[in-house]
């Protein structure tokens, strides 16, 4: 009995391979996008963890010099002999590889075993062996897969020699258990300061938002895919009503029916999940190099450019495929269990049933939109922001069929002719079947509009910001204080202005921040714009009692213009807040004179030089021949701008790719819905055909219908997309980064997107329309002779 019933159920797929394809493809695509994004995130996180463990970040405190100079080796020995259990670390770059030197005997954490276990010999490590990550090529290095990407580890003496920095150290890692007695740090090494370990590595905190955005995209794609699956399952259920009725009449118990359907869906979900995970791997592999380059450029994070197979995202992909199917099928299985034994398969019943559920749907939609509204007022924080986003999108999607239905009712009242009257009525009847596909289209379009608005606003603001902040035409870095003095002296007479960069790390209102001491220069006065400022802020700064802070610091510490903060125990009044896009840290500016009073031992290692742009190249060559500063230590403003914009554009290549994929999934959803509905449409079209509408007309009307519905959806998608953009810019960006971008509108972009969406919809509708136009007249006639 079971076998027969199961075969009867499965027979449906054999007769309707298109539906089976819809179901599998929809689920597979959705799973692919989700697991692809998760694979990228998992790879990045593994890289961050490896990198953090290499330097003991997140677990151990570090000692570094206040002025950023290297620590002398004698200081390390002095600390050890004074009872401090610290371990030396030196880092540098050698041919694009980050090379780290550690002392295996004193290093806490994972450093030493990682470095030595691969080689098995402490003696050889001390004698000069280097252990490198698999993606690194260095002469004589041994490979160890556990090492962070683009990183190599060596003994501290070896690395000192390789970097030409014998006797220098960059940081001292403080072990967790210190001895009973130790000397006071301020007494024995006052130039050092202790940085407390932060939970989670620096890099993973910086990039959290980036990965959260990727995850959100994956989730959105998955939701769209689940819509498709829901539609396919619902349709399969409706079409099998007759079969189910017959089977139950023959004596198959209801419970068995439900179990069989559930297991059939489970099997399909697993198959689709496997395909999806495989596809996701391919997508991730294709996108990962761009993501890695973005992260390297934006945050200096080293992420492996090759994807490793990690079971975690394969398993979550399968889990979410099965789970998504369960959610999508829940409704259908519930209906099945409540269905009266002799209920027939009536297409009109579909619409009627939909009408009953419509009130519930409206209530849920309004509830979600209200929730979104409340969260805008009340909420803060990134997670609340995403919940708000989800509520907004879901509420709008659920409301779409109702809105369209109202529009169609209105349009049908305006209809004057018979054909137009029939057209609108038929469209209204079609709506429930198409609504899921249209919801998917709405979400995809809104996401496109929202994200592209955000990206374009970002780019516009960023370009203007770069113009404002990169005031000098040329930037030079000195290798040591002696060279810095030489550069200053050389440049003094040859350029319009020398703007040395004086910088140190401080704590303002309990938040870490970078403090800059700026010279007075027209470049600042003319170009800088403030988000909020007192009168004549630059004058106040150079009087010496005032400070400027960036937006991030003002938001995080809750500071406004006019508040007072202390730096190195001296009070300063805040006279201005400036935008500082892309900087995760706090920042503050005081006058150069005051800075030198407070931190006399800090010297400039970088200089901004103002000179006419056409003289830059000549100046660089002169400087190289006169004082030996290589051209690689200089960068001109045009170079920085091009680099920044390049990184920027690369970042959003990833989102652009995901945008296109999501739109493709929505287009696919429309195609599948139309195809599956076509078979059911014949009884409704037959009377119209019998009364004189040619099949060609019918096909054309079908196409027109889809275009109209898609256009309406596009029109509704526009305000939704703008709302989405606003939430991203004003809520999520602020919560995640601490700064707010102004929102700009780009009507040309929207028109283009709308055009693409409608094009996608019409391409999707073409095939079903053609099939309809080619329906054999015999099939249409059969309707009247009850042979269907």
């Amino acid at each position, binding site marked *: 009995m079971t076998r027969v019933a199961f075969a009867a159920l499965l027979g449906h797929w054999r007769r309707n391979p298109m539906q089976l394809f819809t179901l599998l493809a929809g689920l597979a695509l959705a799973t692919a996008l989700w697991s692809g994004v998760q694979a990228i995130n998992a790879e990045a996180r593994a890289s961050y963890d490896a990198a953090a463990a290499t330097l003991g970040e997140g677990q151990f405190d570090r000692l570094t010099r206040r002025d950023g100079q290297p620590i002398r080796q004698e200081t390390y020995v002095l600390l050890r002999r*004074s*009872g401090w259990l610290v371990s030396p670390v030196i880092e540098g770059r050698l041919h694009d590889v980050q090379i780290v030197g550690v002392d295996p005997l004193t290093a806490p954490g994972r450093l030493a075993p990682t470095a030595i276990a691969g080689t098995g010999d402490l*003696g050889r490590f*001390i004698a*000069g062996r280097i252990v490198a990550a698999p993606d690194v090529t260095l002469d004589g290095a041994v490979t160890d897969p556990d090492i962070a990407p683009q990183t190599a580890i060596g*003994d501290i*003496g070896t690395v000192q020699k390789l970097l030409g920095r014998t006797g220098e150290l960059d940081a001292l890692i403080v072990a967790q*258990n210190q001895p009973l007695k130790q000397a006071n740090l301020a007494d024995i090494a006052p130039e050092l300061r202790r940085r407390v370990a932060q939970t989670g590595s620096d890099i993973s905190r910086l990039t959290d938002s980036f990965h959260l955005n990727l995850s959100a995209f994956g989730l959105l794609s998955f939701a769209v895919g689940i819509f498709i699956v829901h539609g396919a399952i619902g349709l399969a259920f409706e079409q099998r009503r007759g079969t189910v009725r017959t089977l139950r009449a023959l004596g198959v118990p209801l419970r068995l029916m439900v179990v069989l359907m559930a297991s059939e869906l489970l099997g399909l979900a697993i198959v689709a999940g496997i395909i999806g995970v495989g596809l996701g791997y391919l997508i991730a592999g294709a996108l990962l190099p761009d993501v890695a380059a973005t992260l390297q450029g934006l945050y200096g994070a080293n992420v492996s450019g090759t994807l490793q197979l990690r079971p975690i995202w394969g398993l979550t992909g399968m889990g979410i495929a099965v789970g998504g199917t369960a959610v999508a099928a829940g409704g259908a299985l519930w209906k099945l269990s409540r269905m009266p034994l002799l209920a027939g398969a009536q297409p009109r019943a579909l619409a009627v049933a939909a009408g009953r559920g419509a009130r519930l749907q409206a209530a849920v939609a309004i509830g979600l939109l209200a929730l979104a509204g409340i969260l805008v007022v009340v909420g803060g924080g990134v997670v609340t922001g995403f919940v708000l986003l989800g509520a907004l999108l879901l509420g709008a999607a659920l409301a779409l069929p109702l809105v369209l239905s109202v529009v169609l009712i209105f349009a049908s009242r305006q209809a004057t002719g018979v054909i137009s009257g029939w057209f609108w009525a038929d469209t209204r009847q079609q709506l429930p079947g198409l609504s899921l596909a249209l919801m998917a289209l709405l979400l995809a379009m809104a996401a496109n509009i929202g994200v592209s608005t955000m990206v374009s606003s970002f780019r516009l603001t960023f370009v203007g910001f770069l113009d404002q902040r990169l005031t000098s035409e040329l930037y030079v870095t000195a290798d040591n204080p002696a060279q810095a003095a030489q550069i200053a002296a050389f440049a003094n007479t040859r350029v319009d202005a020398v703007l040395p960069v004086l910088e140190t790390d401080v704590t303002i209102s309990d938040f870490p921040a970078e403090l800059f001491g700026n010279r007075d220069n027209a470049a600042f006065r003319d170009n800088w714009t403030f988000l909020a400022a007192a009168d004549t802020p630059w004058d106040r700064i150079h009087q010496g009692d005032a400070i400027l802070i960036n937006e991030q610091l003002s938001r995080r510490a809750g500071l406004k213009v006019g508040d007072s903060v202390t730096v190195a125990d001296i009070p300063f009044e805040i006279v201005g807040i400036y935008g500082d896009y892309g900087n995760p840290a706090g920042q503050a500016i005081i006058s150069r004179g005051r800075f030198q009073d407070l931190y006399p031992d800090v010297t400039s290692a970088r200089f901004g030089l103002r000179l006419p742009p056409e003289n830059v190249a000549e100046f660089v060559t002169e400087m190289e021949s006169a004082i030996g500063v290589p051209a690689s230590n200089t960068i001109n403003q045009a170079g920085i701008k091009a680099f920044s914009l390049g990184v920027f554009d690369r970042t959003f290549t990833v989102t652009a790719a995901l945008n296109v994929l999501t739109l493709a999934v929505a287009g696919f959803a429309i195609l599948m819905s139309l195809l599956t509905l076509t078979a059911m449409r014949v009884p409704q079209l037959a009377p119209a055909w019998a009364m004189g509408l040619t099949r060609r007309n019918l096909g054309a009307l079908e196409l027109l219908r889809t275009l109209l519905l898609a256009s309406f959806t596009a029109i509704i998608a526009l305000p939704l997309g703008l709302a989405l953009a606003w939430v991203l810019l004003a809520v999520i960006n602020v919560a995640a980064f601490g700064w707010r971008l102004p929102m700009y509108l780009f009507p040309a972009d929207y028109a283009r997107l709308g055009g693409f969406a409608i094009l996608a919809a019409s391409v999707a509708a073409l095939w079903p329309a053609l099939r309809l136009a080619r329906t054999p007249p015999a099939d249409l006639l059969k309707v009247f002779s009850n042979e269907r």
Partner: protein
Amino acid sequence: MSVKLFIFLLWLPVAGFAQGFAGLGGSAEGFAMPAPNPTFQFPKDAGAHPDYKIEWWYITANLKDAQGTDYGLQWTLFRSALAPEDGTGWSTPQLWMGNAAITTPDAHFVTERLARGGIGQAGVTPAPFSAWIDDWLFTDTQLSATGPDFGFDMTLGDLGPTVFHGEGGYSVKSTSGQASYYYSKPFIQISGTLSLPQGDVAVSGQAWLDREWSSQPLASDQTGWDWFSLSFDDGAKLMGFQLRGDDTYTSASWIDPDGTTTAMENGAFQARPLGMVEVAGRQVPTTWQVTLPAKSLDVTVRAINDAAWMATSVPYWEGPVIVSGNRQGRGYLEMTGY
């Protein structure tokens, strides 16, 4: 397996696999080997001998506080050479390890330090004599060390005579001829303060310094040793050890109160375990019967605290003992290879 253990096992150079306890029976290619009839020069020989593979400055002390409670104290500095050729700075093959411990009747505190040679973090200078690792120090007048939960700061008084073991300082360890240079200063007067969790304790007593250096002190079949340093109430002292391998090899030095030393040949000194105790998951004998017929010695040696396990990179048992039988006194016991 702990990280530090892993590192330390790699430290002592192993040819393929560990031979003897802690690899001390491993290959000694390129290193200098002790030879019979040595002449010692002081202060030079108080310092390091980098052409030998392994060396230590080993101090144990039996102390009492004002109430008469027994304490044991240990301060050890090991030097190990990864290769016979020396180097400068970080590339020197000399590695240093420090072990320090305090044993009370109820508790045992132990800590360890590791350091590279060549940069000044650890080392020994012969004149003026100074041995240090991190903030731990041993000079002619001072002995100090700290750990996370304890520390000590001791003053050394009269250092007493120097005693040479074996044949004039050439101490044989097995019938195959493995040997080391070995001398002691067992009569050091010591007093100072122990910093314990319950507070500081003023103590005084006698300390025993062992100095030993060699390149292959063990035969490959020898799994460990039991070493006794006993100070009897009449002022005489006994140093005795037995090496456990395919055969048991024993050696001892009888030290008169004025410092005259009599070397005992293999088999004269006998030590028999009397009772096993479970310590750190191992079966360890903390009560022994020690006999030396040549001096009519028959005593029972019992640990003051059974739990004196040194949980260091290379673990072993070391703690103060009480001597009873036909002589009484105090002493120190070290057991390795359990």
